Protein backbone atom coordinates (compact mmCIF):
# COMPACT_ATOMS: atom_id res chain seq x y z
CA UNK A 1 0.00 0.00 0.00
CA UNK A 2 1.42 3.31 -1.07
CA UNK A 3 0.36 6.72 0.27
CA UNK A 4 -1.16 9.21 -2.13
CA UNK A 5 1.15 11.84 -3.59
CA UNK A 6 2.56 14.48 -1.29
CA UNK A 7 5.34 17.04 -1.23
CA UNK A 8 8.14 16.35 1.21
CA UNK A 9 9.83 19.17 3.11
CA UNK A 10 12.63 18.53 5.56
CA UNK A 11 12.89 21.02 8.39
CA UNK A 12 16.28 21.85 9.85
CA UNK A 13 14.91 23.66 12.90
CA UNK A 14 11.70 23.89 14.90
CA UNK A 15 11.23 27.45 13.63
CA UNK A 16 11.55 26.33 10.02
CA UNK A 17 9.10 23.48 10.62
CA UNK A 18 6.52 25.88 12.06
CA UNK A 19 7.04 28.33 9.24
CA UNK A 20 6.48 25.51 6.72
CA UNK A 21 3.21 24.34 8.27
CA UNK A 22 2.08 27.93 8.57
CA UNK A 23 2.75 28.34 4.85
CA UNK A 24 0.84 25.20 3.83
CA UNK A 25 -1.89 25.36 6.48
CA UNK A 26 -4.28 22.47 7.01
CA UNK A 27 -2.81 20.51 4.08
CA UNK A 28 0.47 19.98 5.92
CA UNK A 29 1.32 17.44 8.60
CA UNK A 30 4.41 17.00 10.72
CA UNK A 31 6.27 13.73 10.22
CA UNK A 32 8.24 12.60 13.27
CA UNK A 33 8.85 8.84 13.55
CA UNK A 34 5.89 8.26 11.24
CA UNK A 35 4.53 5.25 13.11
CA UNK A 36 1.08 6.75 13.62
CA UNK A 37 0.87 8.90 10.48
CA UNK A 38 2.34 6.64 7.78
CA UNK A 39 -0.01 3.68 8.47
CA UNK A 40 -2.97 6.08 8.14
CA UNK A 41 -1.55 7.49 4.92
CA UNK A 42 -0.96 4.02 3.49
CA UNK A 43 -4.60 3.17 4.15
CA UNK A 44 -5.50 6.55 2.59
CA UNK A 45 -7.31 7.50 5.78
CA UNK A 46 -5.03 10.54 5.80
CA UNK A 47 -3.79 12.30 2.69
CA UNK A 48 -1.85 15.43 3.62
CA UNK A 49 -0.48 17.17 0.55
CA UNK A 50 2.67 18.26 2.36
CA UNK A 51 4.74 16.35 4.91
CA UNK A 52 7.10 18.44 7.02
CA UNK A 53 9.75 16.02 8.27
CA UNK A 54 10.89 17.01 11.76
CA UNK A 55 12.55 13.65 12.38
CA UNK A 56 16.05 15.07 12.09
CA UNK A 57 15.65 17.78 14.74
CA UNK A 58 18.03 16.02 17.11
CA UNK A 59 17.94 18.97 19.51
CA UNK A 60 14.36 17.92 20.33
CA UNK A 61 15.50 14.46 21.44
CA UNK A 62 16.59 14.66 25.07
CA UNK A 63 15.71 13.63 28.59
CA UNK A 64 16.74 15.99 31.38
CA UNK A 65 16.16 16.29 35.11
CA UNK A 66 14.61 19.72 35.62
CA UNK A 67 14.22 19.56 39.39
CA UNK A 68 10.57 18.87 40.14
CA UNK A 69 9.91 17.31 36.75
CA UNK A 70 11.59 15.38 33.95
CA UNK A 71 11.72 17.22 30.62
CA UNK A 72 11.49 15.01 27.54
CA UNK A 73 12.02 16.37 24.05
CA UNK A 74 9.12 15.61 21.74
CA UNK A 75 11.31 13.69 19.31
CA UNK A 76 12.63 11.30 21.93
CA UNK A 77 11.96 7.77 20.76
CA UNK A 78 9.96 5.28 22.82
CA UNK A 79 13.06 3.06 23.13
CA UNK A 80 15.02 5.94 24.64
CA UNK A 81 12.23 6.76 27.13
CA UNK A 82 11.90 3.07 28.05
CA UNK A 83 15.61 2.60 28.73
CA UNK A 84 16.50 6.02 30.17
CA UNK A 85 17.99 5.74 33.70
CA UNK A 86 16.53 9.19 34.52
CA UNK A 87 13.01 8.17 33.48
CA UNK A 88 13.31 4.80 35.20
CA UNK A 89 14.39 6.47 38.42
CA UNK A 90 11.97 9.39 38.58
CA UNK A 91 8.96 8.38 36.46
CA UNK A 92 9.11 4.57 36.32
CA UNK A 93 5.45 4.38 35.26
CA UNK A 94 6.29 6.25 32.05
CA UNK A 95 9.33 4.05 31.34
CA UNK A 96 7.15 0.97 31.75
CA UNK A 97 4.37 2.33 29.52
CA UNK A 98 6.87 3.34 26.83
CA UNK A 99 8.10 -0.26 26.82
CA UNK A 100 4.55 -1.40 26.05
CA UNK A 101 4.16 0.70 22.91
CA UNK A 102 4.01 -1.49 19.81
CA UNK A 103 7.09 -3.68 19.52
CA UNK A 104 10.86 -3.09 19.49
CA UNK A 105 10.93 -2.05 15.82
CA UNK A 106 8.13 0.45 16.41
CA UNK A 107 9.87 1.76 19.53
CA UNK A 108 13.04 2.34 17.50
CA UNK A 109 11.17 4.83 15.32
CA UNK A 110 8.10 6.13 17.15
CA UNK A 111 8.44 9.24 19.32
CA UNK A 112 6.73 10.35 22.53
CA UNK A 113 5.74 13.66 20.96
CA UNK A 114 4.31 11.98 17.89
CA UNK A 115 2.23 9.65 20.01
CA UNK A 116 0.86 12.48 22.16
CA UNK A 117 0.23 14.86 19.26
CA UNK A 118 -1.62 12.07 17.45
CA UNK A 119 -3.93 12.04 20.52
CA UNK A 120 -5.16 8.49 20.05
CA UNK A 121 -7.07 7.40 23.14
CA UNK A 122 -6.00 3.82 22.41
CA UNK A 123 -2.31 4.72 22.68
CA UNK A 124 -0.43 4.15 25.91
CA UNK A 125 1.43 7.41 26.37
CA UNK A 126 -1.41 9.97 26.19
CA UNK A 127 -3.19 8.28 29.13
CA UNK A 128 0.04 7.67 31.02
CA UNK A 129 1.20 11.28 30.85
CA UNK A 130 -2.35 12.35 31.75
CA UNK A 131 -2.29 10.16 34.88
CA UNK A 132 1.08 11.65 35.84
CA UNK A 133 -0.16 15.23 35.54
CA UNK A 134 2.16 16.13 32.67
CA UNK A 135 2.37 19.47 30.91
CA UNK A 136 3.03 19.76 27.19
CA UNK A 137 5.09 22.61 25.76
CA UNK A 138 4.09 23.71 22.27
CA UNK A 139 5.73 26.17 19.93
CA UNK A 140 3.85 28.14 17.33
CA UNK A 141 4.32 31.07 15.00
CA UNK A 142 3.32 33.42 17.82
CA UNK A 143 5.45 31.88 20.54
CA UNK A 144 5.53 29.11 23.09
CA UNK A 145 2.78 28.02 25.46
CA UNK A 146 2.19 25.26 27.98
CA UNK A 147 -0.87 23.06 27.89
CA UNK A 148 -1.81 20.84 30.83
CA UNK A 149 -2.48 17.27 29.74
CA UNK A 150 -5.93 17.65 31.31
CA UNK A 151 -6.72 20.41 28.76
CA UNK A 152 -5.05 18.80 25.75
CA UNK A 153 -7.30 15.98 24.55
CA UNK A 154 -10.41 17.33 22.82
CA UNK A 155 -11.86 14.43 20.86
CA UNK A 156 -10.99 11.44 18.69
CA UNK A 157 -7.47 12.17 17.33
CA UNK A 158 -8.14 15.79 18.21
CA UNK A 159 -6.01 17.91 20.52
CA UNK A 160 -5.63 21.51 21.63
CA UNK A 161 -2.72 21.92 19.18
CA UNK A 162 -3.37 24.57 16.55
CA UNK A 163 -2.45 23.70 12.94
CA UNK A 164 0.65 25.89 13.13
CA UNK A 165 1.80 24.59 16.50
CA UNK A 166 4.33 21.89 17.24
CA UNK A 167 4.67 19.89 20.43
CA UNK A 168 8.27 20.36 21.58
CA UNK A 169 8.55 19.08 25.15
CA UNK A 170 6.74 16.86 27.62
CA UNK A 171 7.17 17.75 31.30
CA UNK A 172 6.39 14.92 33.67
CA UNK A 173 6.36 15.57 37.42
CA UNK A 174 8.66 13.26 39.38
CA UNK A 175 6.85 10.46 41.14
CA UNK A 176 9.00 10.75 44.29
CA UNK A 177 8.79 7.06 45.07
CA UNK A 178 5.01 6.71 44.66
CA UNK A 179 3.73 3.21 43.89
CA UNK A 180 2.57 2.61 40.35
CA UNK A 181 1.18 0.11 37.89
CA UNK A 182 0.59 -0.13 34.17
CA UNK A 183 -2.05 -2.61 33.03
CA UNK A 184 -2.53 -3.36 29.37
CA UNK A 185 -5.14 -5.88 28.33
CA UNK A 186 -4.99 -7.12 24.77
CA UNK A 187 -5.40 -10.36 22.88
CA UNK A 188 -2.33 -10.21 20.66
CA UNK A 189 1.27 -9.23 21.32
CA UNK A 190 2.12 -5.68 20.16
CA UNK A 191 -1.56 -4.71 19.78
CA UNK A 192 -3.27 -1.63 21.12
CA UNK A 193 -4.87 -2.07 24.51
CA UNK A 194 -8.49 -3.19 24.51
CA UNK A 195 -8.42 -1.36 27.83
CA UNK A 196 -5.35 -0.06 29.64
CA UNK A 197 -4.75 1.61 32.98
CA UNK A 198 -1.91 3.84 34.14
CA UNK A 199 -2.01 4.44 37.88
CA UNK A 200 0.13 5.76 40.70
CA UNK A 201 -0.48 6.22 44.39
CA UNK A 202 1.61 7.72 47.16
CA UNK A 203 2.72 10.93 48.88
CA UNK A 204 -0.91 11.66 49.78
CA UNK A 205 -2.26 11.51 46.24
CA UNK A 206 -3.10 9.26 43.33
CA UNK A 207 -3.70 9.39 39.61
CA UNK A 208 -5.55 6.93 37.40
CA UNK A 209 -6.03 7.24 33.65
CA UNK A 210 -7.67 4.87 31.20
CA UNK A 211 -6.57 3.81 27.72
CA UNK A 212 -9.20 3.16 25.04
CA UNK A 213 -12.22 3.95 27.20
CA UNK A 214 -13.65 6.71 24.99
CA UNK A 215 -12.71 9.16 22.29
CA UNK A 216 -10.02 10.69 24.52
CA UNK A 217 -7.82 9.26 27.27
CA UNK A 218 -9.82 9.43 30.48
CA UNK A 219 -8.57 10.75 33.81
CA UNK A 220 -10.59 8.83 36.39
CA UNK A 221 -10.74 11.57 39.02
CA UNK A 222 -13.67 9.87 40.79
CA UNK A 223 -11.34 7.04 41.69
CA UNK A 224 -8.70 9.40 43.06
CA UNK A 225 -11.33 11.36 45.02
CA UNK A 226 -12.72 8.17 46.53
CA UNK A 227 -9.25 7.02 47.60
CA UNK A 228 -8.58 10.44 49.12
CA UNK A 229 -11.73 10.13 51.22
CA UNK A 230 -10.60 6.79 52.54
CA UNK A 231 -12.43 4.36 50.23
CA UNK A 232 -10.93 0.91 49.84
CA UNK A 233 -9.16 0.01 46.61
CA UNK A 234 -12.01 -2.35 45.73
CA UNK A 235 -14.66 0.33 46.29
CA UNK A 236 -12.70 3.02 44.45
CA UNK A 237 -12.14 0.69 41.49
CA UNK A 238 -15.91 0.32 41.10
CA UNK A 239 -15.90 3.98 39.99
CA UNK A 240 -13.29 3.32 37.28
CA UNK A 241 -15.61 3.82 34.33
CA UNK A 242 -17.86 6.47 35.88
CA UNK A 243 -16.37 9.23 33.69
CA UNK A 244 -15.73 7.08 30.61
CA UNK A 245 -17.82 6.63 27.50
CA UNK A 246 -16.38 3.56 25.80
CA UNK A 247 -17.42 2.39 22.36
CA UNK A 248 -18.08 -1.13 21.15
CA UNK A 249 -15.86 -2.46 18.39
CA UNK A 250 -14.61 -5.78 16.97
CA UNK A 251 -12.51 -6.44 20.05
CA UNK A 252 -14.94 -5.68 22.84
CA UNK A 253 -18.40 -4.40 23.64
CA UNK A 254 -18.76 -1.21 25.65
CA UNK A 255 -20.10 -3.28 28.58
CA UNK A 256 -17.06 -5.54 28.51
CA UNK A 257 -14.77 -2.52 28.45
CA UNK A 258 -16.49 -1.13 31.55
CA UNK A 259 -15.98 -4.49 33.26
CA UNK A 260 -12.33 -4.58 32.23
CA UNK A 261 -11.74 -1.02 33.44
CA UNK A 262 -12.99 -1.89 36.93
CA UNK A 263 -10.94 -5.08 37.13
CA UNK A 264 -7.78 -3.47 35.74
CA UNK A 265 -8.05 -0.38 37.96
CA UNK A 266 -8.43 -2.64 40.99
CA UNK A 267 -5.37 -4.65 39.96
CA UNK A 268 -3.43 -1.48 39.23
CA UNK A 269 -4.26 0.11 42.58
CA UNK A 270 -3.44 -3.09 44.44
CA UNK A 271 -0.04 -3.08 42.79
CA UNK A 272 0.46 0.65 43.30
CA UNK A 273 -0.61 0.68 46.96
CA UNK A 274 2.43 0.10 49.10
Amino acid sequence: MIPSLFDYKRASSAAEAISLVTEYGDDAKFLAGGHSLLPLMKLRLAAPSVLVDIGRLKDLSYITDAGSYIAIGALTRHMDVETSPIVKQHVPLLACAAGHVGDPQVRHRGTIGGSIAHADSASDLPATTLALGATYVVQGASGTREIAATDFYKGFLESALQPDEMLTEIRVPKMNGAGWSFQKFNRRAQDWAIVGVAAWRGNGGSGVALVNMGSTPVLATDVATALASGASVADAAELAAAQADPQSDLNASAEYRVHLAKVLVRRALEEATK
Partner: protein
Amino acid sequence: MKISVTVNGKTHESDVEPRTLLVQYVREDLGLTGTNIGCDTSSCGACSLHLDGEAVKSCTVLAVQADGSQVTTIEGLVTDGKMHPMQEAFMQNHGLQCGFCTPGMVMAGISLLNENPNPTEDEVRMGLEGNLCRCTGYHNIVQSILACAKGGK
Protein backbone atom coordinates in the same frame (compact mmCIF):
# COMPACT_ATOMS: atom_id res chain seq x y z
CA MET B 1 13.78 13.62 -4.54
CA LYS B 2 17.47 12.76 -4.55
CA ILE B 3 18.66 10.55 -1.72
CA SER B 4 21.89 8.86 -0.81
CA VAL B 5 21.59 5.64 1.14
CA THR B 6 24.33 3.19 2.04
CA VAL B 7 22.89 -0.29 1.76
CA ASN B 8 25.01 -3.27 2.79
CA GLY B 9 28.10 -1.11 2.58
CA LYS B 10 27.45 0.28 -0.88
CA THR B 11 26.27 3.88 -1.32
CA HIS B 12 23.40 4.40 -3.75
CA GLU B 13 22.44 7.81 -5.15
CA SER B 14 18.80 7.54 -6.16
CA ASP B 15 15.93 9.72 -7.24
CA VAL B 16 12.72 8.60 -5.54
CA GLU B 17 9.17 9.81 -5.10
CA PRO B 18 8.72 11.02 -1.51
CA ARG B 19 5.98 8.41 -1.01
CA THR B 20 8.32 5.52 -1.83
CA LEU B 21 8.52 3.16 1.13
CA LEU B 22 11.93 1.98 2.24
CA VAL B 23 10.92 -1.64 1.61
CA GLN B 24 9.86 -0.74 -1.93
CA TYR B 25 13.14 1.05 -2.46
CA VAL B 26 15.34 -1.87 -1.41
CA ARG B 27 13.24 -4.46 -3.24
CA GLU B 28 12.32 -2.67 -6.45
CA ASP B 29 15.01 -0.03 -6.96
CA LEU B 30 17.94 -2.01 -5.57
CA GLY B 31 16.67 -5.51 -6.35
CA LEU B 32 17.27 -6.76 -2.80
CA THR B 33 14.22 -9.00 -2.51
CA GLY B 34 15.35 -10.84 0.62
CA THR B 35 13.36 -8.32 2.64
CA ASN B 36 9.76 -9.50 2.40
CA ILE B 37 6.50 -7.58 2.46
CA GLY B 38 4.02 -9.44 4.62
CA CYS B 39 1.15 -7.53 6.21
CA ASP B 40 2.27 -4.12 4.92
CA THR B 41 0.73 -2.59 8.07
CA SER B 42 3.73 -2.66 10.48
CA SER B 43 2.37 -5.69 12.31
CA CYS B 44 4.17 -8.80 11.01
CA GLY B 45 7.82 -7.76 10.92
CA ALA B 46 8.64 -9.61 7.67
CA CYS B 47 10.07 -6.36 6.28
CA SER B 48 12.44 -5.82 9.24
CA LEU B 49 15.86 -4.52 8.28
CA HIS B 50 18.47 -2.46 10.10
CA LEU B 51 18.42 1.31 9.79
CA ASP B 52 21.55 2.77 11.37
CA GLY B 53 22.04 -0.49 13.22
CA GLU B 54 18.56 -0.98 14.64
CA ALA B 55 15.70 -3.17 13.44
CA VAL B 56 12.83 -1.20 11.91
CA LYS B 57 9.79 -2.13 9.86
CA SER B 58 10.68 -0.88 6.41
CA CYS B 59 7.04 -0.84 5.27
CA THR B 60 6.51 2.06 7.68
CA VAL B 61 9.56 4.13 6.81
CA LEU B 62 9.83 6.37 3.78
CA ALA B 63 12.93 6.00 1.64
CA VAL B 64 13.48 9.75 2.04
CA GLN B 65 13.64 9.26 5.81
CA ALA B 66 16.60 6.92 5.24
CA ASP B 67 18.51 9.56 3.27
CA GLY B 68 22.08 9.65 4.58
CA SER B 69 21.61 6.48 6.62
CA GLN B 70 23.16 3.04 6.76
CA VAL B 71 20.83 0.20 5.86
CA THR B 72 21.56 -3.49 6.31
CA THR B 73 19.32 -6.11 4.74
CA ILE B 74 19.48 -9.89 5.03
CA GLU B 75 21.70 -9.93 1.93
CA GLY B 76 24.26 -7.80 3.75
CA LEU B 77 24.86 -10.31 6.54
CA VAL B 78 27.07 -12.65 4.55
CA THR B 79 30.76 -11.78 4.64
CA ASP B 80 33.26 -13.57 2.40
CA GLY B 81 30.70 -16.23 1.62
CA LYS B 82 30.22 -16.97 5.31
CA MET B 83 26.84 -16.68 6.96
CA HIS B 84 26.26 -14.44 9.96
CA PRO B 85 26.26 -16.39 13.26
CA MET B 86 22.53 -15.69 13.57
CA GLN B 87 21.86 -17.21 10.15
CA GLU B 88 24.04 -20.18 11.09
CA ALA B 89 22.11 -20.59 14.36
CA PHE B 90 18.78 -20.56 12.50
CA MET B 91 20.09 -23.25 10.15
CA GLN B 92 21.48 -25.47 12.92
CA ASN B 93 18.37 -25.15 15.10
CA HIS B 94 15.81 -25.50 12.33
CA GLY B 95 14.63 -21.97 13.06
CA LEU B 96 12.52 -21.79 9.94
CA GLN B 97 9.74 -23.65 8.24
CA CYS B 98 8.33 -21.93 5.15
CA GLY B 99 10.98 -19.22 5.45
CA PHE B 100 8.82 -16.20 4.76
CA CYS B 101 9.31 -14.56 8.14
CA THR B 102 12.94 -15.65 8.39
CA PRO B 103 14.75 -12.56 7.06
CA GLY B 104 12.75 -10.38 9.45
CA MET B 105 13.28 -12.80 12.34
CA VAL B 106 17.03 -12.87 11.73
CA MET B 107 17.25 -9.07 11.53
CA ALA B 108 15.09 -8.68 14.66
CA GLY B 109 17.15 -11.34 16.44
CA ILE B 110 20.44 -9.57 15.71
CA SER B 111 18.99 -6.23 16.84
CA LEU B 112 17.70 -7.89 20.00
CA LEU B 113 21.12 -9.30 20.88
CA ASN B 114 22.78 -5.96 20.13
CA GLU B 115 20.62 -4.43 22.85
CA ASN B 116 20.57 -7.40 25.21
CA PRO B 117 23.46 -9.78 24.48
CA ASN B 118 22.45 -12.35 27.06
CA PRO B 119 18.66 -12.54 27.07
CA THR B 120 16.44 -14.99 28.91
CA GLU B 121 13.97 -17.04 26.89
CA ASP B 122 11.18 -14.71 28.04
CA GLU B 123 13.16 -11.68 26.89
CA VAL B 124 13.67 -13.26 23.47
CA ARG B 125 9.95 -13.97 23.19
CA MET B 126 9.05 -10.42 24.22
CA GLY B 127 11.74 -9.05 21.92
CA LEU B 128 10.13 -10.87 18.99
CA GLU B 129 6.64 -9.53 19.65
CA GLY B 130 6.85 -7.52 16.43
CA ASN B 131 7.54 -10.56 14.25
CA LEU B 132 4.88 -13.05 13.27
CA CYS B 133 5.58 -16.57 11.97
CA ARG B 134 2.68 -17.85 9.93
CA CYS B 135 3.88 -21.43 10.46
CA THR B 136 3.73 -20.71 14.22
CA GLY B 137 7.27 -22.07 14.42
CA TYR B 138 8.28 -19.83 17.28
CA HIS B 139 9.89 -22.48 19.45
CA ASN B 140 12.88 -23.11 17.22
CA ILE B 141 13.19 -19.43 16.30
CA VAL B 142 13.57 -18.62 20.00
CA GLN B 143 16.01 -21.52 20.42
CA SER B 144 18.05 -20.24 17.46
CA ILE B 145 18.42 -16.78 18.97
CA LEU B 146 19.31 -18.21 22.37
CA ALA B 147 21.89 -20.48 20.71
CA CYS B 148 23.37 -17.53 18.86
CA ALA B 149 23.58 -15.57 22.13
CA LYS B 150 25.45 -18.45 23.74
CA GLY B 151 27.85 -18.49 20.83
CA GLY B 152 26.79 -21.99 19.87
CA LYS B 153 25.21 -22.98 16.60
